[in-house]
């Protein structure tokens, strides 16, 4: 556990990091970014918390089994979107032209519209969930192991 200053500041900062990460995830189809990058940003926030509070403190509120469930669901969202296109073909972008994220941007440079992209924003969301949970779980498990704590099964 680090000093009180670090703990207070990271407590405040985590909110901004989360919002920034979510922004990167949800705007992946319009601006640079996407699920992997945004997920990594959020996971870095979790790593900051682990560094500030110590892994045993974090373990009380964040268990790897929960992270594992979040990760599995993120992966399921991603592969589920791919399977949902199976009416035509695997990975078919079936939402283009429908009311849900179906807007088609004008060809050429344009100001950008979040309500476009078909399945891509949803896939980005799934990947984002998966990456943030996965990377956090890795770091948490490593921190717990090196501090000598036994993990649940």
């Amino acid at each position, binding site marked *: 556990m680090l000093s009180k200053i670090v703990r207070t500041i990271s407590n405040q900062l985590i909110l901004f990091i989360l919002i920034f990460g979510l922004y990167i995830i949800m705007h992946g189809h319009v601006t640079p970014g996407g699920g992997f990058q945004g997920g990594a940003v959020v996971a870095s926030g979790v790593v900051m918390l682990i560094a500030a509070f110590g892994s045993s403190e974090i373990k009380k509120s964040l268990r790897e089994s929960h992270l594992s469930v979040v990760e599995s669901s993120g992966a399921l969202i991603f592969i589920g979107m791919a399977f949902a296109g199976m009416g035509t073909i695997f990975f078919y972008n079936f939402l283009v032209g429908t009311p849900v994220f179906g807007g088609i941007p004008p060809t*050429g440079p344009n*100001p*950008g519209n979040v309500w476009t992209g078909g399945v891509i924003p949803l896939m980005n969301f799934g990947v984002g969930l998966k990456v943030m949970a996965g990377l956090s779980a890795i770091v948490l498990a490593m921190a717990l192991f*090196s501090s000598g704590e036994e993990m649940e099964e």
Partner: protein
Amino acid sequence: MMQYIPFNIPFVAAALLVGVALFIFLFKRNLIKIVMGVAILSSGVNLFLIALGYRAGGVAPIYTATPEGVMVLPVPQALTLTNIVITVSVIALMLTMVMYIYRHMGDIDAKKSRLLKG
């Protein structure tokens, strides 16, 4: 092709990074250094891929509020992103194993291990 040599510096840099990594694999026996070698090898490959996709004077291949003009190739960027994530995964697993080896042997020098010597 010889007249292009001055423009090919990024490719040469990538090749040298790969060479540094190969040097580590051939001469270093510390497990952490081997993991770093994998990271450097991966960086070399990433640099190579990204350099492949550059087009002179190109902008990022994103249409949102972008200036008119030629765009750099998008596929190498996707390949690089894939390779970065894969490298992160490989390194995480490698470090896990190194932690276990350290716990078992109290040392991370491959020369002291029966299996890893070769």
